[in-house]
């Protein structure tokens, strides 16, 4: 009996040890002292606040690790820094990760500068909204972990529409949007503009590539990579619509994200913004006189196409900087950011208080939380978060991104800028961009 009891006890101990061992081994994985460097556009200081808190909560695995969110002016600037460091062999100077869009991912992944996240992401994919990693997937491989998927929206000043007796619901279509602009112009004696137009590259970026072009199913390249922007019906629809808004004097000409734009908006001269959901943080941070008057709705649709704006996705990409010793830590940080609902909510509340930037979650469980439907005083006690979620219904397909798109953007934008300056008609601009793309790029590779 005693022998039997001893045997059972020994077996129990061995089984317990076997069960504990992997967990103990996992706990023992600590990351070396140092700094995790991450490149990010926009206002990364707010994101850093979340990750600093996360590191404090996880000192057992990263006792002396710091995080540094490095602000880069544009994603191209981030790519440039990484490329230059790589070229110079300065692998220590390369960041550990970069927040990037599809254009950047195509470029960096094809040069072997990103870590393949296919295996890691596929294990988590069921937690996320459908197609979250689509724009980071090239020939079946996932090169970036989805961070945000933000829709194209229509922000409008409800007080202006009320003052002039125009129903904002008419702006659910592009035709209605144009008509609203005409009425605003007429009823306000040309004091109120429907929206803005920027004389620099922002017009192509926000009205074109991320706005009207995907909504109109426009193409720069065909399936073989030939330039078709000059003959494409979608491109014609998108750019002609912008032309109509501009030539009818419905757009206030000023530089984006600059004091004159905010001043004109706060003075009630600009009634709407047709732009990505990211614009929320700029409105909240820069408008005071019109706070409470703003509302957000899904982007108007072209009746010929019927989809409501292409979402802009952003991805956290782990950089292949030799031996990226923090790759695992970055994956853990990313995972918790998208699954730890309570920490995320606490951070968002902090952002609301300080006027910081944040975006809606992209995991199914978080999205089910009523927190993401809450109202905000800036939006007159309506819910911007709900509008952002609704904006993802009926999305347009993003334009195909190729390795030549960074250069194509420069060429197309130059023609749009000359058009905005009044130096050529839109027809001439379309013809010129077609010619220049053919001259300078010719044919591209479709990934």
């Amino acid at each position, binding site marked *: 009996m005693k022998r039997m009891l001893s045997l059972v006890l020994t077996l129990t101990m061995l089984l317990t040890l076997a069960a504990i061992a992997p967990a103990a081994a996992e706990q023992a994985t600590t990351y070396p002292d140092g700094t995790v460097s991450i490149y990010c556009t926009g206002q990364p200081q707010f994101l850093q606040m979340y990750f600093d808190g996360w590191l404090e909560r996880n000192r057992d695995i990263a006792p002396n690790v710091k995080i540094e969110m490095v602000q880069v002016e544009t994603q*191209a600037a981030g*790519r*440039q820094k990484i*490329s*230059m460091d*790589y*070229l110079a062999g300065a692998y220590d100077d390369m960041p550990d990760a970069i927040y990037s869009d599809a254009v950047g991912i195509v*470029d960096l992944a*094809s*040069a*072997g*500068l990103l870590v393949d996240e296919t295996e890691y992401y596929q294990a988590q994919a069921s937690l996320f909204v459908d197609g979250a990693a689509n724009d980071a997937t090239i020939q079946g491989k996932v090169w970036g972990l989805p961070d945000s998927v933000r829709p194209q929206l229509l922000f409008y000043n409800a007080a202006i529409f009320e003052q002039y007796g125009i129903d904002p619901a008419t702006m659910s279509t592009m035709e209605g949007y144009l008509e609203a602009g005409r009425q605003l112009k007429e009823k306000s004696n040309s004091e109120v503009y429907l929206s803005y137009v920027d*004389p*620099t590259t922002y017009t192509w970026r926000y009205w074109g590539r991320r706005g009207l072009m995907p909504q109109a199913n426009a193409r720069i390249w065909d399936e073989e990579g030939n330039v078709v922007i000059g003959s494409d019906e979608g491109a014609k629809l998108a750019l002609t619509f912008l032309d109509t808004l501009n030539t009818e004097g419905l757009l206030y*000409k*000023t*530089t984006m994200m*600059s*004091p*004159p734009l905010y*001043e*004109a908006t706060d003075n009630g001269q600009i009634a709407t913004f047709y732009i990505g959901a990211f614009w929320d943080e700029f409105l909240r941070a820069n408008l005071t006189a019109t706070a409470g008057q703003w509302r957000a709705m899904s982007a108007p649709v072209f009746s010929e196409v019927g989809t409501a704006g292409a979402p802009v996705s952003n991805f956290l990409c782990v950089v292949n900087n030799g031996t990226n010793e923090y790759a695992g830590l970055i994956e853990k940080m990313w995972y918790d950011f998208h699954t730890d609902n309570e920490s995320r909510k606490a951070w968002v509340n902090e952002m609301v208080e300080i006027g910081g930037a944040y975006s809606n979650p992209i995991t199914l469980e978080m999205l089910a939380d009523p927190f993401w439907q809450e109202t905000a005083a800036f939006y007159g006690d309506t819910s911007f978060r709900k509008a952002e979620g609704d904006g993802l219904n009926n999305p347009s397909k993003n334009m195909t991104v190729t390795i030549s798109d*960074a*250069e194509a953007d*420069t060429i197309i*934008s*130059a*023609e749009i*800028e*000359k058009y*905005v*300056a*009044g*130096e050529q008609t839109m027809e001439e601009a379309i013809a010129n961009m077609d010619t*220049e793309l053919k*001259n*300078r790029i010719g044919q591209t590779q479709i990934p």
Partner: protein
Amino acid sequence: MVKTLKKYKWPYLFICPYFILFLCFQLVPTVWTGVISFAEWDGLRQLKWVGLSNYAMMLKDYMFVDALRNTALYWVATAVGVLLCSMLIANMLHSKKLGAKRFFKTVTFLPYVCASVAMGLIFKMLFEENAGLINEIILSLGGQRIPWLTSSRWDRIPVIILHVWRLTPWYTLIVLSGLLNISPEYYEAATVDGANAFQQFFSITLPMLGNILFFCFVTVTVDSWKIFNESYVLAGPGSSNMSLFQLLYTSAFSTFKMGYASALGVVLILILLLISVVQFMVRRKQGEI
């Protein structure tokens, strides 16, 4: 050769650090620029030899034509503006009638020590079409708003003004040092002979400053062909006020066409060499150097 090296080993040793740096950071990169100007390369993938196609591309690229024309305009306008302004200000600072000279000298030099990008951003606000101070002044005088930065007709003017404003202090100092080296006896003798201030300026000051002004012209030329910050910050529509250096930067680091950017660099070097050679030949013909 070895004998000479042995004989002058100490002088050679003393100038060695400069030449090592020159070799590593100027000569080798310049040669390498020339090499990759014959290739298609984005800095990351395999380099592909394409012969003269980067140079051929320049002939088809309207941005290159714009950039070349703009840079030539910046050069002429800046050279004239800077030399005139620095002559004027240096003469005023040199005048015996001016009080508080130290104060004025300090104030004059301030634009040069300000960061050019920061000043560019301030100029951008000043020349803003709807809310800029310059247009407000024009409006108060009964004029119309001018699209300084949004029209290719006007957008080079703010760039030129900013560049002249930034460079003038440095050249004022150089001209002032030249003025201080002119012996007062020339002016005394001219006064005795009955020459007025105007005649003294053209007959004494200007000829005596000849070499100084030539040096200023050569360096302003190099500075103007290298103009970047001003036109980058005060960018107009498309490439309408883009400089050659800016196009080079955009080609290399925005669209990652290193081969094309290198070809632009080679052209820039050749233009500067040509201008410098012509300038020196003219001065030599005049018997000044």
